[in-house]
């Protein structure tokens, strides 16, 4: 049995269903992420775990015990709020001591625990400062240290890095991974940032419109999206939709309007005529100037209509004669040249049957 069992949990606000029959099991020691666009229900779900909101249906079990009827102050879970919510009238030490005092920790033990917590979040020497004397990243660390000092069963993090700038965010991501490994406490992390989710998590639940679209490891979510929404939301993706033209030998051919027949490897056995989608990551597409000498499974000519130069890589938007835009990504790896192609160049895009991922609709 998982540490936290979310069973068929539903939450409605008037006519709007924020969380719709969600069932998730979160294991002890896991770094679990709820990922989705704003309004997908991820924060509502987190607030129900913390106890700030109550489900209209379903149960939330922690260690097998139903959490219903237990107010937030009596749940062994702690929340790190997006706004940090540090107490402005207390020093860093005062903030970290607060949950210890609430838990009636003997006064003699408190200083050592504060010191340990501040060391965990690399804030030694900041104990006497007030929150307004700290930077955003330091405030965030105080919030995390304060939440961890009583060794809760679970830490809930509500978009904790959203207010930080990109450079600091990356630094804090690494720190969070290490911290979670060190303290061994289960983290439930809420974010709308898919790169953050992919980098941090052991498992991700991708949510949309109150439902879990896919629950899996980051690499599986990225490579094998189960739905069109997941494919589109996580990273960049070419989505080719059309009716199935023919099947056989584990390969399906899709008749994609504006592009032509596209072949993809799949175990799916859909009858011809039923709709399907192929999700194809830009980095899996081969883009070159001349026609390939081998005979690739999928192969189209086109011209570079647009490009995004990103430094390490360039994203090329290739227009095919039929009017389809194919997005391909190529590392700027050739020495002596900034990038391979310019807008207007005639190019050849190709990919193998197993490059794309077939999604039934």
């Amino acid at each position: 049995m998982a540490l936290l069992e979310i069973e068929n949990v539903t939450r409605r606000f008037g006519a709007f269903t924020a969380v719709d029959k969600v069932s998730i099991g979160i294991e002890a020691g896991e770094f679990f992420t709820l990922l989705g666009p704003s309004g997908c229900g991820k924060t509502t779900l987190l607030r129900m775990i913390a106890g700030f909101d109550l489900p209209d249906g379903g149960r939330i079990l922690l260690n097998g015990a139903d959490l219903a009827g237990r107010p937030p102050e009596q749940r062994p879970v702690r929340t790190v709020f997006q706004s940090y919510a540090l107490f402005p009238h207390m020093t860093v030490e005062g903030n970290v001591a607060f949950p210890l005092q609430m838990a009636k920790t003997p006064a003699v033990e408190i200083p050592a625990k504060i010191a340990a917590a501040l060391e965990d979040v690399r804030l030694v020497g900041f104990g006497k400062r007030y929150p307004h004397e700290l930077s955003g990243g330091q405030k965030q660390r105080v919030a995390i240290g304060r939440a961890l000092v009583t060794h809760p069963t679970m830490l809930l993090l509500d978009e904790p890095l959203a207010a930080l700038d990109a450079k600091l965010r990356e630094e804090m991501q690494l720190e969070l991974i290490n911290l979670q490994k060190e303290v061994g406490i289960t983290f439930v992390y809420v974010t709308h940032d898919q790169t953050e989710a992919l980098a941090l998590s052991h498992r991700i639940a991708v949510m949309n419109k109150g439902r879990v679209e896919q629950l899996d490891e980051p690499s599986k979510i990225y490579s094998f999206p189960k739905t069109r929404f997941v494919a589109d939301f996580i990273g960049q993706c070419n989505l080719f939709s059309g009716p199935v033209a023919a099947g056989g030998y584990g390969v399906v051919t899709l008749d994609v309007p504006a592009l032509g027949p596209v072949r993809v490897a799949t175990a799916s056995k859909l009858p011809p005529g039923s709709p399907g989608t192929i999700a194809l990551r830009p980095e899996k597409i081969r883009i070159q100037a001349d026609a390939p000498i081998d005979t690739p499974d999928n192969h189209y000519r086109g011209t570079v209509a647009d490009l995004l130069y990103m430094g390490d890589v360039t994203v090329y938007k290739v227009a095919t004669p039929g009017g389809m835009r194919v997005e391909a990504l190529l590392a700027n790896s050739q020495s002596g040249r900034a990038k391979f192609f310019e807008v207007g160049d005639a190019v050849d895009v190709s990919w193998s049957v197993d490059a794309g991922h077939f999604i039934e609709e």
Partner: protein
Amino acid sequence: MNGKPKPVAAATGSRFGRWLVSGPPLVYLLLFFAIPSLIMVLASFRTPGEFGGLAPLFEGGRLDLNLDSYARFFSETIYAQIFLKSVWYALFTTLFCLVLAYPLATLIAKSPKRFRDLLLLLVILPFWSNFLIRVYAWMIILGPNAALARTVNGVLAWFGHEPVPLLFSSFAVLVCLVYVHLPFMVLPLYANLEKHDQALLDAAQDLGANAWQRFWRITFPLSLPGVYAGAALVFIPALGIFAIPDILGGPEDSLIGNVIKQQFLETRDWPFGSVLSIVLTVAALALAGLAAWVARGRLGAPSSTREARA
């Protein structure tokens, strides 16, 4: 001017503009506050006139200034006693106002935005009728034939206790003092509580604090600036008030304000009245200073100025 070179003309222009704006109120305060205060200080060293007012400043070619009135204040303990009693009345008033105003201000701050203006309007509604009329209204409410006195004395009689008069008592004075000053406590408290961040209370609850702990550890300390502002607005006027004890109090309820009024209008001993006024002003300033000093020590934390500097 933070060291930046500015065109001279612009600098003088802005300085002239500043004086133009702040001049009239300064002149007003100088004429009607500073100069009268100085006259009062001077009067406190003079001799009372035979038929009231002041004896001539130059008597037989020599300046007549003395410390007689001050000596009288410090030698006759009755005045110090009345003074202490006034401080007590003002302290009680402040405390009762705080206890009554805090829940009310919280209620207003937490009510939906569209009701807030209405509730605030209700708080300041009493100001629309005259202060004295409102004090006289309490004479009727507390009068011996009013329902309140009858009920109270009915209950007391049931317990075999003699009837008590509600009017012309310290009870009546205190009730009316609290009534009159309550809005001055509610408004600054509301202004403070309205700005509180709900996320802090959520965080405190998440960290294990129950409702009581959330109040004493988070809400109350953060509301202290509002509490101090309200306390000053209630305590200082309550300390010098004379109308309420005059109308609703008994002979025992004379406060320092009544004695001062008496010295000027009845006894006609202006120097001694001036001494009492000066002592009252100095005491009010000293208590306000003490409160500010205690506040800084207790808060320790970011006052708004420190926040601004950081």
